């Protein structure tokens, strides 16, 4: 029926054709085409839209990820201060501000998206509320109560965490003795779990809660733990516990303590491990990352940048002594000494493009409390009260009686000298129980060095001459009844002084006691040979950033360590340094993979068997004395035959001589370490500081590795949108 009607209609249309028929046919065809084409086009359009959405989301995601990368770069390269120093990126960056979002846009568009990056310092300690920026800065900069933490890898895959608490309590401050540790806390990053009951904190009640993507463990010490349980100066106590986690992941941790008894110090934390939150937004997608950067002065952790170390001795062998005595004794005190940092790109030089980030000054010496006093015609071996080592009055000993915590420091070789007094010092009694003692002092002279740069005394990169002198010059002429060299009014006068050489100027409170002969004697046969301990010296470490030294990591160890005969110096973590990643190109091109500097006092040329070995096979760890020379580092010093013994080589590395020193007296030796001592992709290195017949004090050890990574790892990453 329908077909008949359609046929009739078409026939009717065909009759009397006048052009309208063609139009009708076209319209019908168009309608048919539309019916067929529309769903096809819709299908294709939907497909394209779906693909477009994916493409758009992927583009947004990678744009946001680029923001995270940029923020990581800013953090790794210490650019936050520079980035947020002036509008529009303001307020100025404050590393102790845990509430402010530091925001900036990426320049231009990434994948046609504007990207905004927010960086925030993260407050980790489970202590509320977090301190204000001023409070936080005061606690950390003051340095009275320092908390540091280190991950330790034990043999067999077990991992532990060590929390070191250092309290610089001055024994002349009665309030300081009231300090009590209330709680100790530690946070472990995601994937790592506290081994309940492990370590020396196991006797305290602990709680463990999920926190910041990981775990927070708090030990309640019930305020029972007081400073009397801590040893040495500063008072140091080490806590530890074990944890488990995936071997493929690097653990990150932050530790803290809360205290009572001293109002100014209620909390302290490991400020060297700095967590940041990075939020990067592109379109509707946000990437959020948490990263940890390990800052300076943390033992066993990496920082970016490189260093140069210089220094000088304050005591040197006397040319009036026999050649043999000059090998044993440093009998001549110097008024001061200077050392120069040269511009350049070699080891021990500072690049012209460098910017000084930090400057750390160390000085160290040996102090004897004896002196020769003449009564009538007889010389007496007298002593100065208050200058003999006693663990009960270390602050008085160091800061009041010996005053070795004060020096004069300056730049430019003869410029204005500034008096510096530090309260960060470490003291060790000599092992022969003679009552003599050694000390190591530290002072952060970053501000002083930057001031010298700003006023033109030093080059813009910090290059120039630095000088350190004894602080107090006492004008007190020698008296006939005292051993020449000493001045003083009476035998019990602790304000003794030495005549200085070669200028004949004088000073009080010298930074070391030189070897002393019985007047009239030509040799050091008496007093006992502990005058061989005599040394005094200083060293300045300048840490800088420079485009020429990207990818370096620094490790600074500055616990004052004594190394006696026939033993390995007891460095932490089983003498293993870890956390770096040796780049693959160290195997070619002849570039050194690392360099290190050690500041050692009292290394005698005449005694050998002392060496510094790097990455010796583990099989030697039980008998390091057998380590072959190929693993030993040497500064290459060969002394004149009249001075050196038969072992002026890697087996007498601590010989009171360094290429950088104007006079002999201490070791500030810099060594380069090359492939194959370090292999590509190495992540740890073993250091042996062994000694046989020589004894010496390690003031610091600093290493710089060329590394493929410059900071800690990303510990959490979240994509929203």
């Amino acid at each position, binding site marked *: 029926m329908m077909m008949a009607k359609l046929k009739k209609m078409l026939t009717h249309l065909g009759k009397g054709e006048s052009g309208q028929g063609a139009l009708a046919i076209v319209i019908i065809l168009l309608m048919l085409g539309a019916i067929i084409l529309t769903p096809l086009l819709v299908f294709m359009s939907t497909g394209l839209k779906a693909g477009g959405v994916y493409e758009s989301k992927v583009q947004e995601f990678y744009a946001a990820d680029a923001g995270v990368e940029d923020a990581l770069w800013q953090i790794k390269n210490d650019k936050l201060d520079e980035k947020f120093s002036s509008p529009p990126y303001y307020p100025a960056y404050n590393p102790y501000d845990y509430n402010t979002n530091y925001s900036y846009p990426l320049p231009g568009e990434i994948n046609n998206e504007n990207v905004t990056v927010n960086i925030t310092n993260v407050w980790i300690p489970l202590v509320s509320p977090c301190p204000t920026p001023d409070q936080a800065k005061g606690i950390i900069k003051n340095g009275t109560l320092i908390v540091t933490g280190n991950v330790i890898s034990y043999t067999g895959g077990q991992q532990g965490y060590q929390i070191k608490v250092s309290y610089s309590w001055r024994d002349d401050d009665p309030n300081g003795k009231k300090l009590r540790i209330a709680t100790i806390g530690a946070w472990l990053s995601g994937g790592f779990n506290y081994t309940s009951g492990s370590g020396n904190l196991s006797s305290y009640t602990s709680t463990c809660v999920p926190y910041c993507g990981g775990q927070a463990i708090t030990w309640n010490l019930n305020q029972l733990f007081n400073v009397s349980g801590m040893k040495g100066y500063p008072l140091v106590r080490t806590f530890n516990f074990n944890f488990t986690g995936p071997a493929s992941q690097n653990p990150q941790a932050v530790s803290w303590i809360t205290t009572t008894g001293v109002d100014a110090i209620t909390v302290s934390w490991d400020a060297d491990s700095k967590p940041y939150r990075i939020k990067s937004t592109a379109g509707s997608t946000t990437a959020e990352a948490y990263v940890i950067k390990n800052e300076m002065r943390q033992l066993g952790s990496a920082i970016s940048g490189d260093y140069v170390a210089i220094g000088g001795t304050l005591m040197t062998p006397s040319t009036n002594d026999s050649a043999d005595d000059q090998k044993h004794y440093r009998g001549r005190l110097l008024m001061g000494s200077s050392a120069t940092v040269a511009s350049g790109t070699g080891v021990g030089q500072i690049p012209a493009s460098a910017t000084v980030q930090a400057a750390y000054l160390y000085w160290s010496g040996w102090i004897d409390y004896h002196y020769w006093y003449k009564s009538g015609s007889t010389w007496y071996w007298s002593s100065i009260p208050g200058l003999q080592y006693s663990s009960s009055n270390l602050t008085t000993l160091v800061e009041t009686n010996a005053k070795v915590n004060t020096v004069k420091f300056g730049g430019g070789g003869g410029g204005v000298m500034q008096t510096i007094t530090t309260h960060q010092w470490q003291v060790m009694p000599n092992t022969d129980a003679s009552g003599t003692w050694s000390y190591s002092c530290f002072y952060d002279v970053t501000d002083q060095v930057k001031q010298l740069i700003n006023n033109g005394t030093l080059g813009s990169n910090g290059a120039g001459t630095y000088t350190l002198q004894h602080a107090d010059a006492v004008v007190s002429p020698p008296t006939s009844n005292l051993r020449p060299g000493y001045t003083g009014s009476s035998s019990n006068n602790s304000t003794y002084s030495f005549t200085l050489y070669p200028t004949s100027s004088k000073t009080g409170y010298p930074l070391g006691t030189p070897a002393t002969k019985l007047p009239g004697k030509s040799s050091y046969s008496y007093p006992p040979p502990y005058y061989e301990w005599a040394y005094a010296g200083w060293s300045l470490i300048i840490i800088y950033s420079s485009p020429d030294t990207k990818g370096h990591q620094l490790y600074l160890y500055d616990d004052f360590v004594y190394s006696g005969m026939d033993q390995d110096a007891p460095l932490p973590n089983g003498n293993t340094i870890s956390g770096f990643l040796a780049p693959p190109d160290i195997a070619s091109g002849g570039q050194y993979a690392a360099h290190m500097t050690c500041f050692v006092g009292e290394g005698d040329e005449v005694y050998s068997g002392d060496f510094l070995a790097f990455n010796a096979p583990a099989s030697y760890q039980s008998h390091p004395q057998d380590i072959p020379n190929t693993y030993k580092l040497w500064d290459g010093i060969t002394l004149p035959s009249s001075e050196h013994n038969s072992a002026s080589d890697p087996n007498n590395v601590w010989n009171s001589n360094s290429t950088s020193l104007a006079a002999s007296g201490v070791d500030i030796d810099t060594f380069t370490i090359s492939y194959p001592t370090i292999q590509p992709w190495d992540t740890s290195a073993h250091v042996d500081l062994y000694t046989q017949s020589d004894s010496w004090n390690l003031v610091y050890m600093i290493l710089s590795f060329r590394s493929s990574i410059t900071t800690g790892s*990303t510990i959490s990453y979240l994509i929203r949108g």
Partner: protein
Amino acid sequence: MRLIHKNQKGFTLIELLIAVAIFAVVAVAANAVIVQIVQSNRTSSHMVALRQVQQAGYRVNLDALQAQNISVSNVSGSRGFPLTLNWTAWDGGKFHTVVYNLVNPSGGLYQLQRQETVTVDNQTTTTVVGQYIYFNTTSCSWNATANATTKVLILNITAMVGLETESRTYEIKPRCV
């Protein structure tokens, strides 16, 4: 000839041009229709396969970037599946476990299934992030012992719809591992 010209009114030039234009459009459209009808099945298959690969790669990419721990199956013939990724959220401490598995519901091609469990909520959500997955050329690998810079999750994935296949290889460097 007279008969032919009788009642002849003819077309104007404009009418002719319009008619030619209309016929041209119709001809092109008709051609497109014919071509699309012929090709649509193939194009559609391609598009569907591509979307499966894209979607699966995108999801695995997002999860792997966030993961703090990754493991793959070492069972022979498993082609690395199940792929397990987990992480703890910074805020709230929720522990996420995501397991990717190849499942074969109908005996033909496989599905890539994503199963996410949030420990705190104790809720498991299962979604299919890719269908029509061709088992023999789909795999994942993860070298947990490689050093940090070379440690990547590699996902090879192939979707097959009809006779059309789409394959992609994703190399993902997790942020937190």
